[in-house]
């Protein structure tokens, strides 16, 4: 084979690497030294990784080092994002410089259309210790900063009640009767927006089609129904758990950027049908008629009907905020008002029952371990009443009462105590067990078995439908 010409500089920053021609050069033997440890508290993570990467000569080892280091930075980033309070988080990011590595956090590191699922390694002990020390330092620094904070400074225009408090979330006032129109209809629409009679304005510039909505309902005590449905019958409320900057004029650019970045991410991954940003703007992401990714493993019920995966039957509405434990209301008044108008519009358009308007935290489950509260956003503190909805925190948890689900230590560590509906459901289970002369554990196991059966049936049915659709597409493509 012809020997290839080697490179020359175009920009002139570094001399080209010396390379031989002909067949691929044999690589020097792999370095047997251990993979360098991940740097954690570095102001410039990329430069640090570059320097360490250059010391590894085996390509596979080098790739392992780079990929694992980046995954650990991503895990650190997630940990720092959980630091309570935006100014404190901002300081944490400044100290660690982890934001610099953020463009390298990729859900698709092989560049394929269908990326493999990743199992992210936990932070090593050394890194965890460093992160904890950093958090302590941050708390101390924040304390000092607060002590020297000028008292005459005006309060932010719309405060975010992000700091944990012991009092329950404050419910906003219900809308006075007679203000809202009895029906909601589209008044105007144009490129990038829709305007409705209740004042709701939906921005449609990020709107995208999802997978066709297709689901079946389970009849309690019977099993999966035969009818395939394609209309939404519920709403699931979420929090975006994204970057939240202080609502102050000086952060305008950050506030705008983080919302735009979030919307791009949601559009790319087809997450949620609606996002309500910090200023109360309502953005449509996935079309309402299609399925979005927002509440995959979840359980909810109304009357004699049970739903095992709420992506199919519900519309996902997310507030751009962090839940922060739900002991304070984490949304702005503008978001609340937009949420109320959007709920009215959706309920009117699709005839959605109030019983089917639920939060993600109340419905999310870990299907494998039969645990409730796999995701906990709005597991406490959602202003149901102010949105004209029943308080679902008091309603017996369907996952517990129908399928015997429980909760674990992690759940209690975040929640402190389960919401009242879980206790109500457990009381019912105890009563039923006593009436049947069985133990609660036996009853739970039996009901968890029913859940597994139903879930399996649902999965197989979805796979069959998918295969049939693919076969139809193939037949259409081959002209037969």
């Amino acid at each position, binding site marked *: *084979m*012809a020997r*290839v*010409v*080697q*490179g*020359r*500089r*175009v*920009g*002139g*920053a*570094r001399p*080209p*690497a010396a*390379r*031989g*021609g*002909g*067949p*691929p*050069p*044999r690589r020097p033997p792999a370095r047997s030294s251990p993979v360098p440890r991940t740097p954690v508290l570095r102001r410039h993570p*990329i*430069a640090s*990784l*570059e320097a360490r*990467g*250059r010391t590894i000569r085996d*390509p*596979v080892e*080098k*790739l*392992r080092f*780079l*990929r694992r280091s*980046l995954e650990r930075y991503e895990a650190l980033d997630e940990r720092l994002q959980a630091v309570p309070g935006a100014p404190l988080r901002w300081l944490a990011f400044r100290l660690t410089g982890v934001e*610099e*590595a953020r*463009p*390298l956090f*990729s859900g*698709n*590191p*092989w*560049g*394929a*259309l*269908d990326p*493999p699922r990743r199992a992210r390694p936990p932070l090593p002990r050394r890194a965890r210790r460093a992160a904890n020390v950093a958090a302590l330092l941050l708390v101390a620094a924040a304390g000092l900063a607060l002590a020297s904070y000028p008292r005459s400074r005006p309060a932010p225009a719309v405060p975010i009640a992000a700091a944990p408090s012991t009092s329950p979330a404050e419910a906003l006032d219900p809308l006075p009767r007679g203000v809202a129109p009895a029906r909601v209809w589209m008044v105007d629409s144009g490129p990038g927006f829709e305007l409705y009679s209740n004042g709701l304005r939906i921005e449609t510039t990020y709107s995208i089609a999802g997978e066709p909505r297709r689901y079946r309902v389970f009849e309690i005590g019977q099993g999966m129904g035969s009818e395939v449905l394609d209309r939404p019958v519920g709403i699931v409320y979420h929090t975006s758990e994204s970057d939240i900057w202080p609502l102050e004029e000086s952060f305008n650019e950050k506030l705008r950027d983080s919302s735009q970045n979030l919307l*791009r991410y949601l559009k790319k991954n087809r997450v949620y049908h609606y996002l309500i940003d910090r200023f109360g703007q309502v953005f449509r992401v996935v079309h309402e008629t299609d399925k979005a990714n927002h509440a995959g493993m979840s359980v909810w019920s109304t009357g004699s009907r049970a739903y095992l995966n709420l992506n199919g039957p519900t519309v996902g509405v997310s507030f751009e905020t962090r839940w922060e434990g739900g002991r304070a209301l984490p949304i702005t008044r503008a978001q609340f008002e937009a949420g109320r108008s959007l709920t009215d519009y959706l309920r009117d358009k699709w005839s959605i029952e109030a019983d089917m308007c639920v939060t993600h935290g109340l419905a999310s489950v870990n299907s494998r371990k039969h645990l409730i509260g796999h995701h906990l956003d709005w597991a406490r503190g959602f202003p149901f009443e102010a949105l004209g909805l029943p308080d679902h925190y008091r309603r017996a948890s369907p996952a517990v009462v129908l399928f015997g689900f429980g909760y674990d230590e992690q759940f209690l560590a975040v929640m402190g105590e389960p919401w009242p509906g879980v206790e109500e459901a457990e009381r019912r289970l105890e009563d039923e067990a006593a009436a049947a002369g069985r133990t609660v554990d036996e009853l739970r196991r039996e009901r968890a078995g029913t859940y597994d059966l139903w879930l399996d049936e649902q999965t197989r049915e979805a796979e069959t439908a998918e295969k049939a659709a693919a076969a139809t597409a193939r037949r259409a*493509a*081959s002209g037969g």
Partner: protein
Amino acid sequence: MAENKDHLWKSPEDSPEKIEDLVKGGSHPVGIDVGTSKVVVSRRGGKDVACASQLNAFIPVPYSPVTERTIQQQSDIHYYRDGDEIVIFGSATERFANMFNAEARRPMADGLLNPKEKQAWPVLEAILQSLVPKPRSSSEVLAFSVPAAPPGREAQLTYHEASLRQHFTSLGYKAMAINEGLAVIFSELEDHNFTGIGVSCGGGMCNATLAFLSIPSIMFSLPKAGDFIDHSVGEAVGEHATRVKVIKEEGLDLSRTPADKLEKALHIYYEDLVETLVDTLRRTIARAEKLPRTERALPIVLSGGTVKPRGFRELFERTLRGRSFPIEVAEVRVASDPLTATARGAHIAAMFEK
């Protein structure tokens, strides 16, 4: 069709190109470049990395016992019988195309499974089967290359990627797809911590990827490459595309003044291809919303059969210099072995996942 034609296979043990011949035993990850023009496989054999390839083409000839016996007497011909035809595939195709004075057919077009070719999947499956042995254990990893999604053809890429994944999984491999440009970066830019631009110009399309520390930031594909040059030149000078390809591969020198009409046309279409490629690269990088901050200039590495003519690198560099480029470029170089760079990169990815 695939499931009931096993008895018609010529024994794969006869294949001189079969990768298993190059591997002495043990469990080894596999990297495969599934290209429009060629399928290249890379696998570690002892201390070295070994590559094997097959032409991704076929030609059906009428069946007769005499023809089949003649074919059987030659050990380097792969074929299967399909009703009243014998389908010859792989590297022997060109020989038969010349013999029958016919154009070779391709299972793939523009980097993806050819939707207009009825035989596309059975033939590609046969070619892959002739190159890839059955895994020795269920945990053997196989990484195969896929192009970046061509604009408007995402659904076709989904089908292409899923079909290949399904095929390799059914063989017993743990299959993973890797972007073609990224694979080039893995095989050629290790010295740069897998940071830079990998360009792969094959038969059906050009693929380019910009990666930082092994993570792809920008990927695009261009449905214009070697086949485009062959057909355009063929139409311009009234020659068969197959003959243009032969002349192109036999010794085209883009740094020399063209000697005849055909060479002149080859120069023109090569320049057109490079102009389009550089321009798309420039526009895509300029439009990128967020690139990681880096102080250093980035290398560009060129690979694939289309970059093989002498003078291609200089043409690319000249075109690049003639434009304002949004990032600083440290060097432009041709891969150490342009034909196997993608497969070797996929092999590194497979070893990573092992």
